[in-house]
């Protein structure tokens, strides 16, 4: 639980993001902390800073990716939200939405073939918009056929970039899709931190226990633009003022205090600690060398002897 909080707060404080997870921290943190680093597979999406931290990502990875450090896993070759440590179970997303669903499923299939699937979960997050991709459909369906322990968290934040859900899907609720894939569906209010922890925790446990793929639909609102360049003028004031317009971080704070899990002082201490850790990571990354085109290998093959001119 402290883990959850910590990731939650760190997420709220992270700097420099181009694509922010504002409004989605509760969902993301709940997922990240329900997963087991070193065992599970996790493919975060653009708004999953909280989940990354919860899954144990070093803040330095984030700072390095955003600041373009030559160190760190991406070495300036790919940036920010695309970062990952695939060898350690955290996939490095490509931009093409939906592509991660089958990749996580494939990772789980591998575990099954290796006889190492017991107690393992693979998870990925996806937006309302990305449910319209063929990749999402093919990936989830294939995972369902294989009955793999895949958890797909659909963050239905009412918009895909500027496109409202009325232009994205025609079903009453994305949860209605679960039955069509033969996967278990879970609904949750994405602004309610404790509910997220419970529902997503349940879904992850169901998958871990052999219940096959799980689909969680979290209802919420993106509390920022699509990217930092976007002022989200297209989000109606009425929507912002509605239930899902509330800040899940504030909700979480209140919930934790009311439940007696943490005091306001403890929360503030966490916040300060998280801010310091972020500062430290940023400061370190800032002093690191930038990528140097003359040092760069410019080599897309892992197999050295295949480099042109190598034979």
């Amino acid at each position: 639980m402290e883990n959850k909080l910590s990731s939650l707060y760190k997420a709220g404080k992270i700097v420099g993001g181009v694509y922010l997870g504002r409004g989605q921290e509760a969902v993301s943190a709940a997922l990240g902390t329900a997963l087991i680093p070193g065992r599970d597979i996790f493919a975060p999406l653009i708004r999953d800073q909280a989940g990354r931290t919860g899954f144990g990502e070093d803040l330095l990875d984030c700072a390095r990716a955003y600041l373009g450090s030559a160190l760190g896993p991406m070495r300036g070759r790919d940036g920010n939200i695309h970062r990952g440590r695939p060898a350690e179970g955290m996939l490095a997303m490509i931009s093409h939405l939906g592509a991660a669903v089958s990749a996580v499923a494939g990772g789980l299939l591998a575990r099954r073939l290796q006889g190492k699937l017991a107690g393992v979960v693979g998870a990925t997050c996806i937006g309302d918009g990305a449910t319209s991709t063929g990749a999402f459909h093919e990936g989830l369906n294939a995972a369902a056929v294989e009955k793999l322990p895949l958890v797909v968290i659909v963050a239905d934040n009412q918009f895909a970039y500027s496109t409202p859900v009325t232009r994205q899907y025609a079903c009453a609720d994305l949860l209605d899709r679960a039955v069509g894939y033969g996967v278990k569906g879970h609904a949750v209010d994405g602004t309610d931190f404790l509910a997220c922890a419970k529902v997503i925790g349940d879904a992850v446990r169901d998958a871990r226990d052999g219940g096959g793929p799980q689909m969680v639909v979290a209802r919420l609102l993106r509390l920022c633009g699509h990217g930092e360049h976007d002022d989200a003028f297209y989000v109606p004031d009425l929507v912002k003022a509605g239930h899902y317009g509330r800040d899940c971080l504030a909700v979480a704070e209140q919930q934790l205090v009311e439940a007696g899990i943490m005091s306001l002082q403890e929360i503030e201490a966490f916040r300060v600690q998280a801010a310091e850790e972020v500062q430290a990571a940023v400061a370190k990354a800032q002093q690191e060398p930038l990528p140097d085109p003359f040092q760069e290998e410019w080599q897309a093959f892992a197999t050295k002897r295949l480099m042109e001119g190598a034979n």
Partner: protein
Amino acid sequence: MAGFCDETIDGRSELNMSVTYIDAIHQAMEDLLRDDPRVFLYGQDISTFGGAFKATKGLSEMFPGRVLDSPISEDAMAGMAVGAALEGMRPIVEMQFADFSSIAFNQIVNHAATHFYRTGVAVPLTMRLPSGGTAGSGPFHSQSMESIYAHYPGVVVVTPATVADAYTMLVEAVNIDDPVIYCEHKFLYRWLKAKDFHGDGLSIGQARITRMGCHATVVAYSAMVHEAVKAAERLQKESGWEIEVVDLRSVKPLDIDTVLASVARTGRILAVGEAFPWGGVTAEVISRVVADGFHLLDAPPMRLNARDTPVPYHPRLWASHRPTSESICDSLKKLLSY
């Protein structure tokens, strides 16, 4: 075809250079929507939001019901356009980035492109692909896919390099009966400026001599035309070399005649492209030139492409990944010294 390059990039803009490359794209769509009831626009975030690059800004208000936000479904976007084109419309589909057209690949190359040959019924659709690299865009928002589409029979692939071409070729694309892949370069969107949209009357399938010269020919297209011109100017200033720059304008069909005529004058050719180095436009240009103009050549023909890795994210890497005026200069010096 006289010299034609009274446009300018960033920093060198003059007072009367008031319209940009993306203005031209916007104006072309506005004019098309106004003049032709068969035209409609389909793409992600193109209505209220005006598109990721604001190319369609205001059009949904001007033409209600004809500028439609699509789901995040590139395959369906292209498929819908095929079906609409068959029913007499002239759809213009905006891909949010060229890179995402990989999802529409099948519909483009197997559905749209084959249709006329198979059935005798044409599929007049236009796909706008915001293409090419800009600093910090990384491997999935920087791609140049013209070579992929041009490989397939039945698609026209255009690569406007000037404000006027951005305008006229989009209008022409929509009026052509074949599927057209319109590769618009994101780097040029706001940096390339001109006095107006007036072109020089060339049509799709005709290359342009952007800059005349006698010592070597650079064949380029899209943003690389401007890098080539810059390189040519520098070489002229520095060492008096006169470099001719040919802007292919469309890479399929490819106007090899204009290229050959230029090589006949200069005896030397460098083909420059921003795409990945294996295959593609530069290979096609060079292999056609040597097939038909071998005797014209005084030196081995050269190519300059991006490097054979994904487009890197960091601006410092990116700047060394694609050809620039500097690397074009270097290549030209080698070519001239042969």
